[in-house]
């Protein structure tokens, strides 16, 4: 059987006119990358892990800059919901930064990755249940589309996957420390949304 791959959000043919469905598909993309890291070794694992880190950084930053502010302003009790999500994100980022210092072939890597995976998955479901549901309920299609556009624009400025014409995925993914990547992504998101840092 030919290996079937699910394209990442943005590479499927969805019109991306709904920020919630876009972010939910990204949650799946993140899980798929965790699978890929777990299933590979050596350089392949290193490459998959870099892609995972990048997607996590961009996804979480886009949520922080686009979705959480809306939830905080627009939802009754939104402040507390967002505080809870931000606390989860902060914890995940710390685990991620710690993991980033460990070589992917180091025996310590996999247990830490699995712990991160569990945290990220719980965080993603909590967003879907306690935040996204309310966003869909309390806003209209125009707003959902505008937020989707902002997330897409952010991604365009901080690509999460190798682009056509670039011969080596690994070369395209040379990054540097996680913290710096997140800062750069945040700047990109803010520029995309027409805000200064």
């Amino acid at each position: 059987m030919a290996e079937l791959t699910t394209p990442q959000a943005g590479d499927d043919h969805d019109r991306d006119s709904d920020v919630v469905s876009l972010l939910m598909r990204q949650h799946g993309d993140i899980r798929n990358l965790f699978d890929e890291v777990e299933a590979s070794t050596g350089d392949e694992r290193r490459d998959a892990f870099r892609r995972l880190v990048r997607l996590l950084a961009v996804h979480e930053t886009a949520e922080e800059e686009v979705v959480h502010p809306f939830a905080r302003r627009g939802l009754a009790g939104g402040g507390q919901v967002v505080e809870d999500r931000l606390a989860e994100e902060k914890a995940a980022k710390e685990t991620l930064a710690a993991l980033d210092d460990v070589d992917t072939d180091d025996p310590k890597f996999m247990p830490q990755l699995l712990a991160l995976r569990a945290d990220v998955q719980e965080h993603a479901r909590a967003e879907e249940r306690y935040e996204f549901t309310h966003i869909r309920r309390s806003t209209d299609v125009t707003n959902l589309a505008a937020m989707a556009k902002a997330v897409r624009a952010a991604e365009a400025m901080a690509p999460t996957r190798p682009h056509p014409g670039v011969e080596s995925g690994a070369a395209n993914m040379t990054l540097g420390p996680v913290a710096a990547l997140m800062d750069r992504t945040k700047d990109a998101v803010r520029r995309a949304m027409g805000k200064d840092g």
Partner: protein
Amino acid sequence: MTFNPLEQRGIPLDRQLRNWRELDVKPIDPDHCDPYTRCRIITMNGIEVEAILFSHQLARNTVDPEVKRRLARVRYIEAQQQKVVNWLLPGVSSVLETTIAYEQVAVDLTAWVARMEPDPYLKQAYQFGVLEDFDHLYRYANLYEMIEHRKAESIVDGLTEVIPGRPTKFHHRDPVDNVRDPYAKDETNPLSKLHALTIMSAEQQTMNFYMNVGPTYMEPIARRLYQEIGLIEEEHVTHYESLVDPGETWWEQLVNHEYNECYLYYSFMEQESDPRVKAIWELHLNMELEHLHQACDLMRRHDGREPESVLATELPNVLTFEPNKAYVRELLDTQIDLTTLGAGYVREAHERFEKMQEEIHGGEAPPSERVMAEHDAMFGREYRVQTEGEHPDPALREK
């Protein structure tokens, strides 16, 4: 090895109650568990739900308050068992992921039962049904990739194929054609009674699940698909429950229920790969042995008959979750175009079937077709897990 539940004593009933700490079980890891562990959990949840609902119905038809109290005591323990079993499922799983696991249960449980069923008429009923659950798995898998960008493969893990079965749109039959003929309680093999109860319970739980979780989706295509497949589960419960001889007394049915629970917990204990879950199967088996003895007492007292007269002399061969790919493919090759007419099966689209089809579809593509069109628009292909080569039916091969 022979295991006769009638000769074993379990945990005394007054020592079966569990406190909150004991009820608070740690869920399985959805990304790293044995898919068949999850299938066993889903099956036993369906069995416990049926045990509880059956006992409630029996209590509502019981006059003697002392008997009502006895039923209430056992039922409360069964309600605790249901909580422990179903709470093994993790909160991080989405409804759709659990749905795909339900359909994996329906495929591999029904296929195994069809393989082992000694009665040809009952065997045919399972063979007919399994090709429909098999198609539901395929439709939900395509919905799952659309909404969550995840592959059903990450749930079924290559143990069950995900390819078209009998197309879902053809499952909508006139309700009278869903009623089967029952087995004869005094002539049938005792194993057949256990099979019918098991599959009926599993399908009933699936029906209950879809009818309740379907509307929690916001995506229009998901809401519609759950509505369509939910209605087919109604047909399946009708199909399987009508296999059971309605001439069995309430007490005889109670004994069959308890015996079946012993059989299934024993079976799953024997094959469980997760030691923590295995310990739960073992504990519950030891509880069920006592429930069985209670039921046997009630049968002796109210029916004046020995339970041995309706049960197997020894526990049948253990019920097993294992891949059934070749078997399902053989059925795809030979039975995909069947429908029901009365209590039998035919190949032609008869008048009553055509009328139902016309009325329910209202000249439009049903949700089970639309989900494929929407999936194709998003990915330019469909989703399948096809591990054993091309689809046996050339018409259902991927274009």
